[in-house]
């Protein structure tokens, strides 16, 4: 491992977007695309990381090389290289003005060569070249840069061969004139050969309109639950911070996005075989999680019944492209209503799966589970679980907002939620089971949240 590889190893280990912090890994390759500018040198680089189990993952790191250390970018210093002309310092370009400016200029100039293309979407309002790029606060898996108050550049960190659904969906919905997403202004895509000689072609970053006045649905929902738990009225409807009208509008917005996705990408149908495959996947997940988290076992029978119940869903089931990872944190409340963001799907799933048609009820279930999370996480922060009144109120909050969301969704959808109820319940239970597994491994103190849901779903059927 070269010394720069060593430097990068350290840098990656400190980045929030680097998914392998808890595993042993080494940097096995750094591949650079031709430079975008030369003074200073700015270029897109791909860092290949290999874990001890042999898994390889590629990260995109736009890099700027400075001749001297710049203390204001100390947090973005990745390492030192010496290619014979003397020492130069490699910085993560998203943090450095010269770096973000280069990316913006490349977009405005529609720069294209055999390795890298910057593409703009016609008819959208592009940012001004003079707009200064600023790193947004930490994000889970990508890095976002705001240009002035007009545009946001999302740099995809972990990249794999193929079209990125986030760009793909935003592009189609923008062209369609959807008001439910932040319009896509443009993107950049790269073509390069990886360490195994395989030719990759993928989206690397996207420029979107910046929804300056927005806040995410999770924060608004939490504010509502907090208000309820402090005020302790008889019913959530009497609390000042009632969220249900927002939840209903959020349901309408979700249904609208689903209609647009169906129109933009077409629909297909699940027949018996497909539905069985879905249910079998749920059952398999349940078995896996029940082995790891013993507390699930007592409810496994009930949950299985919920899954089996979904097999009776009338066929065929209409499916189309969906959001794939919908929850309150993927929604933005703006002064012009709700918008959905981040159409990448669940990053942990393979790209092909994320781009496949699926039941819109999976998104619906994602959201209703998210209401439960909002209520119960606020409830947990209010102290020990033995205050029955608080628990009751938190449950009532979830139920009230779940209903409101479904009402709004049903209003805007052709889907009959009554017929679809067993399948929706199955998706909710599946999601809760997945969450139990996730929390047990990552946030054990929160395991009680999905576990409680699993218990309820298992017994209420």
């Amino acid at each position: 491992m070269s010394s720069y590889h060593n430097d990068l190893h350290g840098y990656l280990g400190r980045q929030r977007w680097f998914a392998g912090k808890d595993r042993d890994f080494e940097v096995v390759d750094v591949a650079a695309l031709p430079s975008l500018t030369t003074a200073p040198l700015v270029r897109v680089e791909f860092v290949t990381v290999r874990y001890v189990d042999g898994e390889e993952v590629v990260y995109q790191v736009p890099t700027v090389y400075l001749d001297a250390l710049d203390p204001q970018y100390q947090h973005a210093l990745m390492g030192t290289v010496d290619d014979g002309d003397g020492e130069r310092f490699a910085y993560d370009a998203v943090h450095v003005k010269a770096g973000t400016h280069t990316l913006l200029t490349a977009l405005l100039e529609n720069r294209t060569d055999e390795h890298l293309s910057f593409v703009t979407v016609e008819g959208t309002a592009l940012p001004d070249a003079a707009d200064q790029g600023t790193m947004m606060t930490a994000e889970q898996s990508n890095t976002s840069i705001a240009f002035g108050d007009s545009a946001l550049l999302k740099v995809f960190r972990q990249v794999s061969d193929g079209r990125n659904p986030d760009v793909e969906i935003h592009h189609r919905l923008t062209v369609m004139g959807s008001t439910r997403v932040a319009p896509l202004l443009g993107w950049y895509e790269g073509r390069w050969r990886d360490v195994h000689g395989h030719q990759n072609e993928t989206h690397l970053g996207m420029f979107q309109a910046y929804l300056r006045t927005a806040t995410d649905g999770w924060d608004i929902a939490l504010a509502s639950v907090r208000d309820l738990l402090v005020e302790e009225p008889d019913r959530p409807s009497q609390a000042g911070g009632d969220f249900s009208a927002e939840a209903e509008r959020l349901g309408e917005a979700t249904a609208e996005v689903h209609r647009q996705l169906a129109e933009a990408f077409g629909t297909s149908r699940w027949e018996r075989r497909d539905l069985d495959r879905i249910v079998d996947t749920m059952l398999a997940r349940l078995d896996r999680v029940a082995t790891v988290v013993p507390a699930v076992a007592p409810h496994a029978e009930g949950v299985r019944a919920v899954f089996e119940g979904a097999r009776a869903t009338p066929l065929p089931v209409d499916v189309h492209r969906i959001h794939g990872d919908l929850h309150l944190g993927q929604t933005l409340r703006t002064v012009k209503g709700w918008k959905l963001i981040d159409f990448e799907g669940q990053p942990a799933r393979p790209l092909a799966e994320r781009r496949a048609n699926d039941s819109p009820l999976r998104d619906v279930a994602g959201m209703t589970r998210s209401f439960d999370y909002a209520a119960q996480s606020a409830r947990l922060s209010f102290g020990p679980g033995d205050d029955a009144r608080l628990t009751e109120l938190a449950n009532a909050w979830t139920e009230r907002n779940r209903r409101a969301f479904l009402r709004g969704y049903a209003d805007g959808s052709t889907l009959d939620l009554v017929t679809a109820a067993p399948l929706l319940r199955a998706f909710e239970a599946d999601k809760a089971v997945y969450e139990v597994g996730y929390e047990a491994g990552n946030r054990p103190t929160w395991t009680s949240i999905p576990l409680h849901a699993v218990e309820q779903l298992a017994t209420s059927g």
Partner: protein
Amino acid sequence: MTDEQGWYQRAVFYEVLVRCFLDSNSDGTGDFRGLTEKLDYLQWLGVDCLWLPPVYPSPLRDGGYDVADYRAVADDVGTIDDFHGLLTEAHAHGLKVIVDFVLNHTSDQHAWFQASRNYPDGPFGDFYVWSDHNDRYADARVIFVDTESSNWTWDAVRGQYYWHRFYSHQPDLNFDNPAVHEAMLDALRFWLDLGIDGFRLDAVPYLYEREGTNGENLPETHDFLKRIRKTIDDEYPNRVLLAEANQWPSDVVDYFGDFAVGGDECHMCFHVPVMPRLFMAVRRESRYPISEILESTPKIPTGCQWGIFLRNHDELTLEMVTDEDRDYMWAEYAKDPRMKANIGIRRRLAPLLDNDLNQMELFTALLLSLPGSPVLYYGDEIGMGDNIWLGDRDGVRTPMQWTPDRNAGFSTATPGRLVLPPVQDPVFGYQAVNVEAELADTSSLLHWTRRMITNRKQHPAFGLGDFIDLGGSNPSVFTFAREYEGDVVLCVNNLSRFAQPVELDLRQWQGRYLVEMLGHVQFPAIGELPYLLTLGGHGFYWFVVADPEEARTA
């Protein structure tokens, strides 16, 4: 700012009911001379313009909006000479005065109506809208559905139906009759000649009736308003017309008139939906109810201004603002009985906010900083209460509480003679809440309100500036900037009862400083990173966005 053009764009208005402010002659009713005595107080408070609801002779079946004579004042509030004295003294104090003027209708006691019903062929025969049938203009809705079943009422004297958009004792004037135009313009000139600084025009959308329309916002109505405006511009410059049109901002904006000339109808219009949205935003602990309505408020012509208020004398029901759109308000309010009840007025600010000083200050700070000229309601500056047992709108029209002495210092008459009894409950009664006590206490709501008004007046951005919603990371924190020719103020409002952090994107002012306005305290410089602020429950900040050199001295 007295004589400058556009004074109303920066003015702080103060609505005062003459009958309820101060009684100078011990007859139990407030009067012009009483109000005149209190001009020192109003000047000290810092308001710029008094708005007097109707002072005309009237049977008072609609709070004086049922005018029986446009060219006189009611006996109980004084004489025309007294009124002239008030105007002269007010002007000497640097205060302006506007009065209510009702264009649409008169009282059925007005001489014009009496002449019209008794002498159909006389000069006033055509002053009102008469018909043999009660089925014309069927598309015009009945506004006061609680008391009226039709817009037509039979008059046995004349043997015809007459048209009224409001109460049946308030017949609508017939604006298709040119003589009515002249009569109204003459009435306006009467007050303008006395030196009045303008009019608040009541119920303007309804002047005309046309078959097949709802009779609101008709082009003929706009034409007549343009005519009034032209009269003012030609003969009485720098007077103001403030329209009351209880409609959605996108409809109200038409009452400003032509953009190209900076507006050629009313100088000001009330922005009614802001008020309930403020209450909703604080109740929901969410900035969106208010952000949304401001986002959907259209631009207005350069010479114009919105009027905004928290409370006033009138009954403002939700129904009047939610005519069409409005599903938002319905979705929110219909489910919340407490909000529904609170918004139909009849309550003053302090009792509406459970007498919570933090909330009163937050609401007042919002009123004084949002786009538009603020209209304070008399007594709210000391946190006066109301008397819900008085019924109708009288509950918020109780006498101004000056002192803890008899009759709240409002009058030396026998208590039984007072126009309305002063509030006497233990929390809001005049022994607890009065001007004298609050004057003596520099940390009182009264002193605080005065300081806020003073600060507002130092910054043209509040009156004239653009409004920039800054969003921010926290949905419970409502942050906006006002900017006018280099004067930039930043207002950060915590709509939640809990302490809140907020991260703001202030990069457009990078390198400048925030200086808190009330204490001139300098906050850290604005850098590239999100600017972190923390606020106490219902707390707020007003900042000047200052250059480094200004910051040290600000």
